[in-house]
């Protein structure tokens, strides 16, 4: 399905809205110094931390977000509508407020962080905090993707699988999840990208300590103050990394409807 021709100018306009700023960014980059800027220890350290934390956060979002999507789907009517909207909160909260909220929950004096602290477990200002912050902001994408896919998918095949004697776990693994493939891929990609770009909540909740909590976006933020060229260069690196990871990891799922 290619859609009518008049979609093309609109698609071009949409592409321009996204691409033009990127081109602008590339145009402002000082390509001569690029290599030295990128390979600076601080940059590499931040990039490694960013990749590590984003991947862990994405895994966390998969492990918790998919069940949450199922749970949301199992709710009914109004309750479901409200629960869905609440789960979008991390998207709506300005990132700094999100970070504060995380502090209120998991900080040293937070609801859960306080008791944990007493038990000798400290989360805030560690790499774990970075992962939590990223998972917090990325969670809505997975939940909403999974829930909307479940709504489209229906439950007929699952019911048939049950008559064949399959346990719920088997049905989930063999029938439902494969059918959710594209939605899971979408959720994962959005979550990973969002985690990689996460800035405000991390800064507030995890702090900005080189090698521990200073991810690339924080490094960029710092660099901006003193060396805008470095900030642009780092942003471009972040982009390239994200584009590469996503382009390689996101295998387009064959668009074949099951008969």
């Amino acid at each position, binding site marked *: 399905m290619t859609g009518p021709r008049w979609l093309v100018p609109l698609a071009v306009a949409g592409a321009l809205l996204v691409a033009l700023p990127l081109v602008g960014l590339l145009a402002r980059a000082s390509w001569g110094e690029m290599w030295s800027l990128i390979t600076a220890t601080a940059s590499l350290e931040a990039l490694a931390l960013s990749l590590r934390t984003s991947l862990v956060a994405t895994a966390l979002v998969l492990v918790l977000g998919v069940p949450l999507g199922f749970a949301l789907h199992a709710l009914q009517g109004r309750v479901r509508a409200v629960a869905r909207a609440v789960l979008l909160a991390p998207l709506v909260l300005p990132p700094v407020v999100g970070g504060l909220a995380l502090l209120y929950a998991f900080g040293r*004096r937070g609801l859960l962080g306080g008791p944990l602290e007493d038990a000798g477990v400290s989360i*805030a200002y560690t790499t774990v905090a970075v992962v939590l912050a990223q998972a917090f902001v990325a969670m809505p994408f997975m939940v909403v993707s999974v829930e909307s896919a479940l709504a489209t998918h229906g439950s007929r095949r699952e019911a048939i699988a049950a008559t064949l004697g399959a346990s719920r776990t088997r049905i989930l693994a063999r029938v439902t999840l494969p059918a959710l493939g594209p939605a899971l891929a979408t959720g994962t990609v959005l979550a990973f990208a969002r985690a990689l770009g996460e800035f405000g909540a991390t800064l507030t909740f995890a702090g*900005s300590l080189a090698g521990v909590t200073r991810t690339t976006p924080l490094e960029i933020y*710092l660099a901006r103050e003193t060396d805008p060229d470095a900030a642009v260069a780092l942003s471009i690196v972040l982009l390239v990394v994200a584009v590469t990871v996503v382009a390689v990891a996101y295998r387009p799922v064959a668009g074949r409807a099951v008969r």
Partner: protein
Amino acid sequence: AAFSPDSEGAPSTAVTHVLDVYAAASLSEVMETLATGFEEVLPWVDVRVTYGGSSDLAAQILEGAPAAVFASADEAQMAAVADEVAGEPVVFATNTLTIAVPEGNPAGVTGLGSLADDAVATVVCAPQVPCGAATATLAELQGVDIAAVSEETSVTGVLGKVAAGQSDAGVVYVTDVARAAGVEAVAIGGADAVVNRYPIARLKRSDFAEIADDFVAYVAGAEGRAVLADAGFGAP
């Protein structure tokens, strides 16, 4: 003795102590130099500096962040964390306002008076943030009604817009222009009338109170003053 953590008093080059300093983002370059300098004096200390907006840092400190020293760009934020502060904060630097314009000064800005012109796209800090409060005070003192197209939440926001040519002029601190790329300063006559003060203090939570005190003393002392003066900061 204060400088000697070992009971034998023998100097050691191995890092054994970490000092967490929370510093306002506008101090990032000088604080880096100061940290290095301090580490040369006390090689077993690793000074880790966390930068951020003063208010963000204050909030984190209130939420139990493991900061030993807090260097704020603003006395109000230092006051906000007064409960966490050990002793009295020390003002270690001052700053005055100037006008930042894009390279070549395309709008031909000559002084604060030029900013009243609607044709000059001016950005200032919002009155809620320290630089904005100072700007408003100065403008009032000089009887200028600045026609701002945007009231930014931070100096960085002002500088970014000026450097990008998005605005023709912005009111920032002298030191900000000094460390920013792509902008020039147009001095404001009588800017001395409004001075911003930077306080620094040790926090109660610091694990090695003596080292933290030493750092505060170092920053506020002669070595610190020299570094700060180099970056354009005024003496307290």
